[in-house]
């Protein structure tokens, strides 16, 4: 994420803050605070780039290339066990944590700043300048012509057959949201693939895969029922490699508006 993108992020949150009411103000305020930490021009794209190298050489072995291989931690998405502020991260890195399971790292100040910048930038050293449009217009598209609300639920409203998007703005970068809209096939997590199952009792089940192992599969079926099936009881088990919706036909302005709206979805406080 480059500094231009960070500024855009900042502006979006600020707009939300101005336009929103009630809960949205709270959400926006939270976003504003974190955006200030991010976008206070203290982390340059050079720092992020340098941080990516520090990360690769010092951190990736345990935390993994996408920062999610240690239980309870997703660095790219800002999910930590104990840390919240940048200062907390500094302490954890310099002193170690979890009873020595994470060793202390003696990094220089520049290296430390860089790796935190890289984490805060969502592991995106290049940055993608995604256009972020008007959330209000985006919301209209979401519920209307985009038919998103036909499958996705937001803040308790809508069906649950597709993933709940109430927190999607906190979980995904603008670039990832754009990719989901333009190239859904490349963005669908393998575990979430649509499935079609025929049981030994000739019941046909369609739905979304939630989890799977050697002997069983867990799904959310089209009737919104959580079901766990034993593979040995299945006559057919088809996994689709394509999501249920096609790449969007929206104009680029409309895509920008929709992303603008999705970025306001930051969950309940």
């Amino acid at each position, binding site marked *: 994420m480059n500094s231009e993108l960070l500024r855009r992020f900042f502006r979006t949150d600020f707009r939300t803050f101005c336009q929103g009411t009630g809960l949205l103000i709270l959400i926006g305020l939270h976003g504003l605070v974190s955006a200030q930490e991010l976008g206070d021009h203290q982390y340059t794209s050079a720092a992020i780039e340098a941080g990516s190298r520090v990360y690769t050489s010092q951190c990736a072995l345990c935390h*993994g290339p996408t920062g*999610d*291989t240690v239980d309870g931690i997703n660095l790219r998405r800002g999910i930590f066990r104990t840390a919240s502020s940048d200062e907390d991260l500094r302490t954890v890195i310099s002193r170690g944590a979890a009873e020595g399971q994470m060793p202390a790292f003696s990094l220089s100040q520049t290296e430390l700043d860089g790796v935190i910048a890289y984490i805060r930038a969502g592991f995106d050293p290049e940055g993608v300048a995604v256009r972020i449009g008007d959330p209000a217009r985006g919301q209209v598209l979401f519920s209307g012509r985009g038919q998103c609300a036909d499958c996705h639920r937001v803040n308790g409203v809508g069906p649950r057959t597709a993933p709940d998007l109430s927190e999607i703005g906190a979980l995904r970068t603008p670039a990832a949201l754009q990719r989901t809209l333009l190239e859904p096939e490349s963005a669908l997590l*393998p575990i979430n693939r649509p499935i079609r199952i025929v049981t030994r009792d000739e019941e046909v089940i369609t739905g979304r895969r939630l989890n799977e*192992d*050697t*002997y069983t599969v867990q799904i959310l079926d089209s009737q919104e029922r959580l079901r766990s099936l034993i593979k040995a009881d299945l006559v057919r088990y088809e996994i689709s490699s394509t999501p249920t919706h096609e790449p969007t036909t929206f104009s680029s302005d409309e895509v920008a508006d929709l992303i603008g709206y999705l970025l306001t979805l930051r969950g309940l406080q």
Partner: protein
Amino acid sequence: MRKYHFLKSVLSLLLVTGLLAIQAARAQVPYERILNASSEPQNWLTYNGGYMSQRHSQLDQITRENVGDLELRWMLPNQVFGAWQSNPIVVDGIMYVTERPNSVMAVDAVTGRVFWKYRHIPAENARVCCGANNRGVAVLDDRVFMGTLDARLVALDRINGQVLWDVEVGDVNLAYSVTMAPLVVKDKVMVGVGGGEFGIRGYVAAFDAATGEEAWKTYTIPGPGEPGHDSWEGDDWEHGGAPVWITGSFDPELNLTYWGVGNPGPDWNAGQRPGDNLYSDSVIALNADTGELDWYFQFTPNDGYDYDSVQVPVLADMEWRGEARKVMMWANRNGYFYVLDRTDGEFLVGEPYVRVNWSSGLDENGRPIPTPQPEGMPTYPGNQGGTNWYPPSYSPRTGLFYFSAWEDYATIYRAEEAEYEPGRAFLGGGFSVLAPVQGAPTIGIGRTNPINNWTDEVGHASLKAMDPQTGEEAWEFEQFDVSDSGMLTTASDLLITGGREGYFHILDARTGELLYYKNLGGQIVMAPVTYMVDGTQYVSIISGNTLATFALRGQ
């Protein structure tokens, strides 16, 4: 019935003094007992169940007919968060198991209740690449030995857990560590050192079991003037890695100990360290008394993929293609399965067991023909390897070698110039795992989530039964997730194992037929062990943070 009881009482009275004397004598575990470990299958006396490291037990109470009667007898929770890779040792009804980072517990093997616990707190600057792991203890006489994360070797009194000696194995400031269970041979305790990601110079060292005094130390990277030194350039050898972090095996007739040697450093930039980089990614045969190198066989010269050869050297005496041979079987992290003659390291067979594209095959001496992939293209097998450190099993009854393999798993490597700085990570680049979808979760060192987000599309396990006569696969058992689980076979032809999904599986060792499975929940990253107390056979397996022990209902 009454008569039977009377007889039993009389016999008990007659034998009681004798038994007490025997018990007192048996409370010791002299070298001879370890040497003949297979003759007392009620115990599990070494990391891999005996010097041949076959993980094959003579116990046969649990069979394919009665596996359905297995029941949980006890559980021992680990008090420390993180993958539990420890292998229990069982001596006359007492289990010795380690806990992260460096605790030892003596546990009643029948009830799971703890007699004592010893806690070593590693130095604050201890550094390990991949978690605060410890894989278990070794025993000799009345002592228990454990290596530590801060590169020390500790001897404890087996009865009360008291420290008898505590010596330095390596310099913790240079990121040396010990995670393996020691190997005891005669009067010596042997350990290797970890630190292959920190630019150490690896070695195996032997210590006097009575005093802790160092008896010998053999570097895995030859120094100036030694044979093989010219496989390095400049001062690369000084920080070239080649750690030894998995317990070796021993052939008493040849008086040789065998050790798998890990990756050269920096891990992913092979171009930065030209040459074969001996004895990284090799098996080395060391004289048990002097540590002198007898022979070596290098699996992956000038490795740029982190293909540590830290697998367990599995030994067997067999008729190999019509000739009596002392063989060593080895499913290597580099994707090839090897059979060597362990008297001199002669290459007998080497065949790929998963998709391999870093090499197009092996020449007549077993040396790989390299086919490096263009930058940005996937390399098979990926960074965690076709297999890794998880202990295999060999059953002399079936003649098959069993291990956990990772299928359809690839890595895209990136090499980068790395500068060596003492005690710091020395990796030379990075890697990403080939995923079907950009940004999809990728397989890490451990299982981090009860949901398998990466799915089988990123890699999955195949338990393979290999025929050492041909190097070919006899059968396989596939799993949806990958597996870091080791193997155990029994004289009733059971193959007992696990996987990251947390399933405890029992298969027919001859056919691969699934006989029993149970969801224990936590990832299984170690091999099960089996033992017998008072006529009951037990199987212990660690799942997540819990050591679970099973036996037959009614036994």
